[in-house]
């Protein structure tokens, strides 16, 4: 099954505050981007499951059409509790490795044109 990283040019993450991390996914092909946008792959529920956090901790999933990008923003959490940068439970001070779970997110659609 193809993975999200295969259709992306860039996957990155960064804190947007001491409390919030945001991931950017840039998709290479317009067709893949359109497919991803209409698929129900990137939903708040799915992201919450992937990152093991409460759904309400997922702030938003934004599709940015003009650059074929998806932005996923969520509160920093640990075992369901809200944390801040530098907390004992914070494993990623600047939130720069929080895109890793997205890298290997499986893409179920067999018709998807994988260009990677």
């Amino acid at each position, binding site marked *: 099954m193809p993975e999200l990283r295969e259709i992306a*040019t*860039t996957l990155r993450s*960064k*804190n*947007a*505050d*001491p*409390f*919030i991390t*945001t991931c*950017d996914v*840039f998709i290479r092909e317009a067709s893949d981007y359109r497919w991803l946008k209409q698929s129900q792959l990137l939903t708040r529920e799915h992201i919450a499951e992937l990152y093991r956090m409460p759904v309400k901790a997922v*702030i*938003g999933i*934004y599709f*940015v059409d*003009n*650059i074929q*990008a998806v*932005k996923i*923003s969520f*509160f920093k959490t*640990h075992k369901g509790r*809200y*944390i*801040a*940068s*530098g*907390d*004992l*439970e*914070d*494993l990623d*001070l*600047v*939130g720069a490795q929080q895109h890793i779970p997205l890298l290997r997110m499986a893409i179920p659609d067999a018709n998807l044109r994988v260009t990677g």
Partner: protein
Amino acid sequence: VHGGVNQHLEAGHNVAERGLRILSYVCDGRTGARPELEDSIRAGIEQGADVISAQGNGMDMGPFFLGAGEAGAPPVKQNFEVAVMGAKEAHIPFVFSLGGRAGADAQLEVYLRVFDEIARDKGITIRAAVISGQISKEYLRAKLDAGIEMPRLFDTPRLSPFLSATDIDDAEVIQAQMGPEPIIAALKLYEAGEIDGVLTGRAVDSGVQMAYPLFRGYPTAGSAHMAKIVECGSMCCDPPNAFYAVMAELDHDGTVRVWPTRPEYRCTVRSVAGHAVYERENPYQEKNPGGTLDVSEAMYEQVDDRTVSVYGATWDRNPYTVKLEGVKSLGYETTFVAIANDPALIASLPALIDQATEATSLAVVGAGVASRTPWVSARYPPDPPRRLSLPRRSPLSCVWWHRRRTLLSTSRRRCASGCSLEISRGGPPPLEIWPSRWRAPFSSKGRRMSSMSGTSCHLTIRPSRFPSRSSSFREASVP
């Protein structure tokens, strides 16, 4: 749309004919000393910069540095020197926000010393307007007393819904992200020939680059979008990094052209539009003091190989507000890793750890910290991962953690190279010992700080090496 690097390099342009040129880079010390950055600043000045702007503080690393009064990322003199000297020679102003990992007065002071140094070394006078980013508690209390509500920016349980008198009392220090307005006020002094530039404490990243165009009467939306693109220097270029300077040219109709000052890099539609969404939780709207920048209708266009033109952002005026950032102390903590290489030492490690535990608790009580209980006990990992299984004579890393038993919570922390430790509620927290590649004792020291909320409490102790004598634990910091 016009532009292109050749045209940019043409001499004889003046601001009335071309746009206003803003040279921007990151000056917070995390870039280190880079000849490439210095070259790119020089190149930008040669390409006709009308102002040199750089952001130099941020809070993404958390509350510690603000609370501890430390800069975190020490200033790099070279990165300021070339800009200040260049600005003076070219008769253009500089605008820097300063402080590193925070921007209160303590951090600002650390950065200002570098300007003293530059002035001394070069035998010049640097005249600058310095704007504090710190907010006095009295000021905030007066606002509260006047019935002004200060709601939290994000709906997180880590912050009180509204700033309370207790929050203010508990705060070690409070700073505010200034917008461009105080800088604009200071730039009037530049116009009057009284200063060479402006240095600020905590500021909105993009406020630094917005100030000069606004001062010159350029439209707010274009200025704000330009600032948002160049605020991290070359992060908007391909390849993206924050290590050198970029140039933006702003027209009176709000059109922006962006290009890297170094010839080996380029700006592409993707790199520029991609950066406009960076570090923000919402890609379209960005709250700023006094307004919201909306880039959802913005258009990006490749002008030439390495220049991108941008237009179409809008600015929705809001009541003027600033973001307050406060920090309260939770106590002290320490974590450190020590290495044992001697097989005999490794064999007797459990006993040594017991000894060290005792010595540590004694030292802590001796340092005047009240109501301590011993916290640490040792065990080997019950089921070490196979990859990390312990070959004979492998160096060991010991990680341990101690904190007030009363505030103990269950948590697990992984250190950078596969070390971990665990603290559990009820019963003494266990110590885990993992093999590690680390060869040098590692220690981190500091007060734990929380963004106006939190429950944990830690103690800072800096040991010299493991196994320790009790004297090596005497450097305890006391609240």
